[in-house]
Every structure is written in C-alpha cells, then in structure tokens.
C-alpha cells in the first residue's frame, strides 16, 4: 500500500487515565493507518479502548487522560507535537469529524438543529450559502423534510433522525476522516441497517475515510472494507473482512467470531472469563489468561505483529516462524493444541429450546396462557395503549421468544406477567390460575415461588450497596422465612456455585464484578427461589459479545437440567434462533407472527418479520462481499 494513500497514521499510541484510585492504561501501544476513502471498522468490547482511540485522534481526551507515548501523523506532521490547543482547531471538524453514540444528547438542547449545523461550516463558506448547504446535507442524509428539521430543536427528533442530523453535521466541515463512535448501538435493528447503509453511501459520494467504532461484528462486516480487532487497549488483528472472519489468526478474534450467535453451530463455543483490568501492567499477551491453549510465552512476553498477507497482520506468537520449529522439537502428543478455540461443550440437542422432549414433563401442558392482553399507560386523552390484545401460550419446559423493537410493548407484557403493571383487559393465567387482578396473599406467594424475572441490565438491577449474599438470599428470605438463616445462606452459596461463581464471592460487593458476572448473580438470585418459569427481559443485550455466549449457554443448561421454562424477550433475532423453540414477533403492541423458530427464519410470512430478518446482519463473507 503506497504511503500517499494514508491520511492518518497512528504510531505506538499509549494513553493513560488518572482515576481516583490509580491509573488506567487505556491504550497500550496502538498502531494503525487510516487510508483515504476507506471504511475501517474498529471492533472491540467495552473497555477495549476503541472509543479512547477515536478521542485521542481528535485530541478530545477528557481532562484526566493523557497520551504518554506515540505519535499521530497527519499530512506529514505529528499532531501530538503541536502542543498548542489551537493547532488542533484547524484539524477538528475540517480534517476529522466525530459522530458520537448518543445522538440526541450530542446536540445542544436549547439551539435549533439548523443553528448547530451551520456553525460547523468552515468560516470560508459565505453565510448566505450556509443554510442552503445545510439543507442539502440534511436531505442527503435521508431526512425527509430538511426545512422542518432545520428549524427543529433536538428533543423534537427521534433517535434515528438525530443520528442522521449528526452525520450531516459531521459532513459540514468536509472532513477527510469521520469517526463514528458506536453510531448505531442505541438504535433499533431496522434503523441500524439504514444508518449503516447511509454511512457506506456517504463514504462513496463524499470520498472521506470512515472509522466505524463498534462492538458489533455484524455491523463491521456490513459496512467496513477493513477491520481492526481491539482487545485490552491493543489492536490484536487487522485485515480485510474475509481474512478476519474466515482466516482469523489471533485466538481472541476466532473466539469472538465463534461466540456470535449466528455463527454458533450445534456445538456451543464460548469464551470463559472476562477481559483483563488495565489498571495494572499486563504481562505478555493480554488474552492469555482466557485462552486455554495459550503458550507459555504468551504469559511472559507480548507478541509483536506478524504479517499474514500484505493486508492482514495479527499480534500472536502462533504466527512466529519459530513456533513450528519449536513444535517439531517437542515429542508428539505433548504438542500444543493448534486450535486455540476456547472451551467447547458437548453438542447440545439439535433442536434447542425443546431440550426435555423426552423428560417426564408432558410437553403439551400449558404453563402460562396470556389471552387478549391490553395494557394502557396514562389516563384520559393522553393514555397510550402499549399492548393491544396479545395472546399466546407458553408450554411446560419450553423457551418462548418475544421479538420486537423498543416500544413494541414486549417489556410491558413481561411486567404484566410479573404483576408490576396491571392489565387493562384480558387475562393471564398460570397453570390455569388467574394471576392478574386482585389476589389473596397465598396466591401471591404461590406465583412468587413459581415465576421470576431476570432483568436486562444487571448493573442496574442489583442493589449496589448490598453484599452478594444479601442479594442472592433476598428472594429466599421472602418465600422461606421459616428456614434457618444458615440454611438460606447455604442455599444462596449453592446457587452461586450453580451459575459458575465461587462461594467466596458471596461476601463481596457488586461493584467488584463485571457485567457478565453480575448477570450470573442475577440468575443465581432467581434460581435460589426455584421457579418454574423465568421471564428474561433482554438478558444479554447489555453484555459484551464474548460474555453473552456464556450467559446464553448457562440459561440453556438450566432449561435442560432443571426443566425451567423461559419467556425470553429480546430484539436480537440471532440469539432467539439459538435459544428458543418458538418465536412470537411483536409490533406496536400486537403479535404479528408466531411460529416455530425454524419456520420464522425460513418462511417468514409477515412483512415486518421479513424486514427484521433482512436487518439481521451476519458476519459472513457473502454479506461483506456485497459492499462496494
């Protein structure tokens, strides 16, 4: 690749943050070239430093962050050497622009969109022309009525519209590079695809380079021409989408791709453990502790980059030319496993979600019946109907999926089943007993033991000021106060072990756990009550890719071993396919289609289901090849 193609070159960038209780090494030597007009995706989990990379390129690190080593070469000059903040002013907006994640909060709430858009033009653009140009940019980003949007305030636009306006604002300075920091993660699936398409199209028409920072492999595959994978503040692998998805060399890349629900075959591969903390110096390859096939050298020394092809390189000792030699020196049989894939569980039944077909439970008995459920919020004229006549049955031991976008009413249904919100009309019955409306104390106690819920965001759903023991024991204290306290504590610890945590974790506080571990705690506190039905509301959507699969696997094994039925609520079709036997698709408070998971995926009937399926991105070469 010729040098004149490169518009920004990041060299050995180290960024450190000063926190109250120590330092955080957020970027640990990142080197990356951004070429003119390309679309580069930076993929990584939360905390991998991908956003920090964007911010440091733009010179927008927060006050407690600092570049301690490295250089940023732009147009032959090192941006980090120009110590004056003014030097960056000519760069920001004009040479590089940023599109942030939360579009609606990225606009000043008290100024109109138009005013904020026009101030992004460079001073050379005459004032009279600015409005005209702004309007054309707005229509170019697919906003139907640019005049109206121009005079709107940010709170009057939807999230997707704000995101488009934000992209228009980034284009205003006619930059060479646009950084998109998680541009789609707060949007609905269908809007997500449209915004990604927009990013792709604009890149072509305007000729700027796009850097797409995302945690979502599918989004990267969909939009990017080149992908860089980040882990613990380093780029571990870099290459064309095909090379990354089909010929990944770094064990982390391979494990990450394998844990994508769409990629999961019959055998469930997933990563164990959690990403390392960058608060302490990391010795060797940061991924080694999670890699069961790690080499001894991985624990001692950080690997350099080894090229695979001119466009593909990876930071792993597996590519060291000495590695095969070392292997041949060893006795056969003692050789390291060449497949660095993480732990594999024995194959699960081919039809997930119908695990206990041969179990003692009769398959046909209906556990939960929801009929013609209506839920309303507010009173009088302002009342909105969130759920408009939903009916479905959930059978004993099955896992039923409710799929829909935000605002479709799926969470309201869950809340009604848990009796958190009242039903306006219709009925919900559990094993033939009505559970909505007024109940006797005994009935409430009965449903309490039978139905429990797992929440979306474990960090929010767990009381941060209580010990894990108290959190897990809480439900048990409520339903079995007659048991001695010691026995309840024993059961709580047992539940912690069942979900893969250690007994001593019971005496720690929630903040010392990662998101995945917290969700395990969330499952443990439900399991300890031994319910027959668990309602799980987006149980993994707030978790990182590599952790999602762990939790899904845990839930599947619970369903199989204990015969617990699940009502799974999610917007994520790929996950549904993996987990559920049957799927109901919800739109605007109504079920538009309900069928077995295979049928939905192969013969979707309703146009909305088809649109959802079309919006489902697959990290596949086929899909990636469609791009320009």
């Amino acid at each position: 690749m010729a040098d004149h193609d490169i518009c920004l070159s990041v060299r050995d960038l180290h960024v450190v943050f000063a926190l109250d209780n120590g330092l955080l090494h957020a970027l640990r030597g990142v080197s990356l070239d951004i070429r003119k007009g390309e679309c580069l995706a930076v993929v990584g989990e939360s905390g991998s430093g991908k956003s920090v990379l964007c911010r440091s390129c733009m010179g927008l690190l927060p006050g407690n962050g600092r570049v301690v080593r490295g250089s940023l070469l732009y147009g032959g000059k090192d941006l980090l050497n120009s110590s004056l903040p003014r030097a960056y002013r000519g760069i920001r907006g004009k040479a590089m622009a940023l599109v942030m994640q939360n579009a609606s909060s990225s606009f000043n709430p008290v100024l109109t969109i138009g005013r904020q858009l026009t101030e992004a033009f460079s001073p050379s653009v005459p004032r009279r022309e600015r409005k005209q140009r702004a309007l054309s940019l707005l229509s170019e980003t697919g906003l139907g009525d640019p005049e109206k949007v121009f005079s709107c305030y940010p709170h009057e636009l939807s999230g997707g519209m704000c995101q488009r306006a934000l992209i228009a604002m980034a284009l205003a300075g006619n930059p060479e590079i646009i950084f998109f920091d998680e541009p789609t993660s707060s949007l609905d699936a269908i809007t997500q695809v449209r915004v990604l398409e927009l990013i792709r199209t604009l890149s072509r028409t305007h000729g700027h380079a796009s850097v797409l920072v995302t945690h979502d492999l599918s989004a990267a595959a969909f939009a990017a021409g080149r992908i860089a994978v980040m882990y613990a503040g380093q780029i571990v692998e870099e290459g064309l989408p095909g090379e990354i998805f089909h010929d990944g060399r770094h064990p982390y890349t391979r494990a990450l791709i394998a844990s994508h629900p769409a990629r999961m075959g019959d055998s469930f591969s997933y990563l164990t453990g959690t990403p390392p903390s960058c608060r302490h110096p990391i010795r060797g390859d940061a991924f080694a502790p999670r890699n069961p096939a790690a080499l001894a050298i991985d624990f001692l020394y950080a690997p350099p980059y080894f090229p695979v092809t001119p466009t593909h390189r990876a930071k792993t000792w597996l590519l060291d030319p000495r590695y095969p030699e070392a292997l041949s020196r060893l006795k056969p049989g003692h050789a390291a496993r060449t497949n660095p894939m993480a732990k594999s569980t024995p194959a699960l039944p081919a039809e997930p979600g119908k695990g206990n077909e041969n179990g003692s439970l009769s398959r046909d008995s209906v556990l939960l019946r929801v009929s013609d459920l209506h839920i309303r919020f507010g009173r009088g004229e302002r009342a909105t109907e969130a759920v408009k006549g939903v009916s479905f049955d959930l059978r004993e031991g099955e896992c039923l999926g409710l799929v829909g976008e935000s605002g479709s009413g799926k969470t309201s249904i869950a809340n009604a089943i848990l009796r958190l919100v009242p039903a306006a009309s219709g009925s919900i019955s559990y094993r033939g007993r009505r559970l909505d409306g007024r109940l006797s104390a005994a009935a409430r106690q009965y449903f309490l033991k039978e139905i429990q819920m797992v929440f979306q965001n474990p960090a929010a759903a767990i009381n941060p000021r209580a010990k894990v023991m108290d959190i897990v024991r809480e439900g048990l204290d409520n339903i079995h106060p007659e048991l001695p306290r010691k026995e309840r504590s024993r059961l709580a610890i047992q539940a912690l072990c069942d979900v893969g945590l250690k007994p001593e974790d019971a005496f720690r506080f929630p903040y010392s756990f990662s998101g995945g571990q917290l969700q395990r705690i969330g499952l443990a506190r439900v399991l300890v009550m031994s319910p027959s039905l668990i309602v799980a509301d987006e149980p993994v959507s707030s978790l990182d890719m590599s952790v999602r699969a762990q939790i899904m696997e845990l839930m599947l094994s619970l369903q199989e071993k204990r015969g617990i039925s699940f009502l799974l609520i999610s917007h994520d079709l790929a996950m549904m396919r993996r987990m559920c036997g049957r799927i109901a698709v919800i739109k605007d408070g109504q079920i538009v289609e309900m069928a077995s998971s295979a049928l939905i995926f192969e013969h979707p009937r309703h146009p909305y289901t088809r649109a959802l399926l079309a919006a489902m991105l697959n990290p596949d070469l086929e899909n990636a090849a469609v791009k320009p």
Partner: protein
Amino acid sequence: MFRAIAYIARRLLRMLLCLMLVTVIVFCLMRLLPIETYFKDFDRATELQIHNRLEELGLNAPLPVQLWRYISELLHGSLGRSDIYREGHPVAKILAEKIPVSAHFGLLALCLSLPFGILLGVFMARRKGGLIDKLGTAYIVFVQAVPAAVYFVFLQLCGSDYLGLSILYRPSVPSSQILPIVSMSIPPAAGFAMWTRRFMLDETNKDYVLQARAKGLSSRSIAVRHILRNALVPLSQQLPGTILMTLSGSIYIESLYSIPGMGGLLIEVIRMQDNTMVQSIVLFYAFIGIVGMFLGDICLALSDPRIRRAPKAVDL
C-alpha cells in the same frame, strides 16, 4: 403557540389561587395574636377603652366578616391603617415611601453582584482547582456559613475605620451609599458564583460540548454560544424573582445603616408590635415572592424550547 398560552393561563390561575390562599392564611394567623398586643399599655386600659379600641380596629366582628372586609379593602388598594408605628396612617402610603429607597439600593447591589458573581463563577470553572477557584470557594463557604449579621457589621466597622466612609447612610452624602451597596451585593454574588461554577462544570462534561469541540469550535465560542446560552435557561427563572425581591430591601443592611427602606421598617414595626403593619409587610413579601416565581416560570418557558414547544414537560 396555543399550548404556550394555555400554559401561561394555567400558571396565572395557580398564582392567583396562591395569592388568595396566602392572604387567607396570613390573615387568620394574625388573628391568633392575643388582643393585648394591640395596646400600648394594656394593663392600664379600662374595659371600655379596650372595647372601643377593638371596635375601632374591627376586631370584634366574626372572623369571616373581618376577612371579607380585609380582602375587599385589598382589592381597592388599601392595606389598612397603621396601629402604632404611625397611628392612623394608611399602610399603603407608608410603604410607597419606603419601597423606592429599598429598590434603589437593591438594584444597584444587583448590578454589582450579578456580573461579579457570574464572572467569578466562570473563572472558577475555567481553572478548576486553581488559585481563583480556591479563593472563590473560601469566599462562598464563608458567606454561606457565617451569619450575615456578623460580617455585615465587620464591613461597616472596617469601612468607617479605615476608609473613612460614613458609618450611617445620609441621603445628602452620595459616598455613604457605597458601604451598604457593597455589603448587600456580597451574599448574592456568592450565590451567583457558586451556581455558575457548578453549572459550567456540569455542562462541560456533557456530550454536546464534546461534539461542539469536535466541530472545531474554539473554547470561547463554546462557552459563549453553547454553555452560557444554556446557563440563561435556569438564570432566567431566577432573575425576575431576584429583581422583584429588591423591593423588599435587606433587613440587616437597612437597619445597620439606618436606611429608611422596607427592611428597616419591618424591624421597627416588629419591635413596636404594630400588628397591621407586620401583616401588611409580610403579605407584601409573600406577594412579590409569588409574583416573582410566576414571572420566573414564564421566562423559563420562553427561554427553554423543551418547555416552550412541549408544555407537557413542565410536569412537577
């Protein structure tokens, strides 16, 4: 537009209701006072004298009748007559004399405290943890923690001892206004500085400021066009009330410097036990408080598009 008018109408209605209620409450509370407080020398008064006096004050009638009389007088612009302070004088006339004096000092002090406080706050926020920030914080802590009675007196002493300024206000000596005005502006300036600093720091961490920096705007135009524009929103809610409150005068300052304004009057009538005057002044204070809040809410609605364009958002 219709929504905005509906909002203002609703808010106006609430204000009127509030004024009514406060009047009734204050009037009824004042009736709880024992009757001897209406007499200069109750012990020596004869039965007949007492009866006549009460009759004269209208206190013998049943409470609802008294209230009705009072309110209808209020609506005609009369606040009753002073009992003791200046016996028989209409209260409204006395207040009309005093209010301009208080407003004069209050507005001048506001002209001093508002720019000073906001500038101090801006500088403190710009260099968080710097010298100005530390000094400013010490100033704010001092003003908020130490009772005003203490440092006002110290200022008065220092001003007269070291600067040779008059220790009391004399209308004929313009320089005698300096000390009262400076003293009066000290507490609100601390309030403005604290508020501005906190606001600036909070806003600086918001996404839209980062986005504005990413657009390539200079930090000054971000401060002026974005942060200060946002700061105007809550400020516009406070300002009408603050301006109106200058009418009520500063109780401490006016009595310390013998300024013939509302604040000094209040202390005098409390000491003299002039119930009608106390009642009128308290009502006056409550009225300007209520009207100030009403105007503040209107200004807020006008300056914040989130409320102007969607009055529903003004849900308490």
